[in-house]
């Protein structure tokens, strides 16, 4: 179990990373709707993922409305694949 990436292993963060793996980028609203997390909770998980350089967060505007874009980095994608491989190995 020592090989398991603890950052991704947390259920909410695993859900976020899995969602992001299926898209080029998404916004905060989409992640919030899909994960059913509160804004604060989602923000704190995203910050942890950003600190680990697994996601990139870009704050921009759509017209006058603030828009927070989130995308998985190459490092994050690699970590997710590696996590899946590890878990598959452990569960086999």
């Amino acid at each position, binding site marked *: 179990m020592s090989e398991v990436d603890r950052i991704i292993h947390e259920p909410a963060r*695993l*859900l976020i990373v*899995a*969602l992001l*793996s*299926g*898209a*080029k*980028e*998404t*916004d*905060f*609203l*989409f*992640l*919030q*709707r*899909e994960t059913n997390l509160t*804004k604060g909770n989602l923000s704190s998980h995203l910050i942890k993922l950003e600190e680990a350089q697994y996601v990139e967060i870009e704050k921009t505007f*759509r017209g006058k*409305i*603030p*828009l*927070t*874009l989130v995308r998985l980095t190459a490092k994050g994608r690699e970590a997710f694949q590696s996590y*899946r491989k590890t*878990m*598959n190995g452990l569960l086999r």
Partner: protein
Amino acid sequence: MANLDEVARRPRRYLSEDGVPDVMLGLNSFLVGLIFLVAFLLPKGSSIGRYYIFVAQILWGCCILGMRWGIRTLRMRVTFPRGGYVALADCQANTSSVWALRFLRVACVVLATLMAEQVLMKGGASALERFVGPLIAVGMALAMSVAGWRYKLSYMNWLALFSLLLGVCVYPFQRGGAGICWMLIGLGLGISVAGLVRLRGFIGAHPMPVETI
């Protein structure tokens, strides 16, 4: 890990939930059918008919561009403010398959032009003329059933059934190219209505958030 695969497919599925591509694709099919139907109503061999073939193709191109613009605009105004913004990753196809697809598109346009020219200018009468509409209907029904089964979209099966019914209706009344046009018009209407129903459902299920981050 099967659930993770399902989660990773959610962004793609989300973009098909709103019905916007169906509305625009149906509208496009309806307009294209109408544009080419006019060509069959013009006197065969007339100079206006000859020029109209090219006008029709320009209008066809405009319809495709309009469809792409419509999908983008509707998503920006309706879908994304309600359910959130998603951009899917670019297709990972290799260069040779991309070129093969481009070649296929050009070949299809050339073939369609030649066929239209044959049918409109030289009459194009053949024994198979009567079956063209129903054959297209069967082809569309098969494509829709496969899509419905693959992406678990039950409304696609209804559209497939509708396509078959249209084929049956077109068979005794319309021959050749005109039959195809009526098929496109009918099917376009059906797809648009199905899309509008899905769009209405999407708007109901995703109310506009009070505040956006």
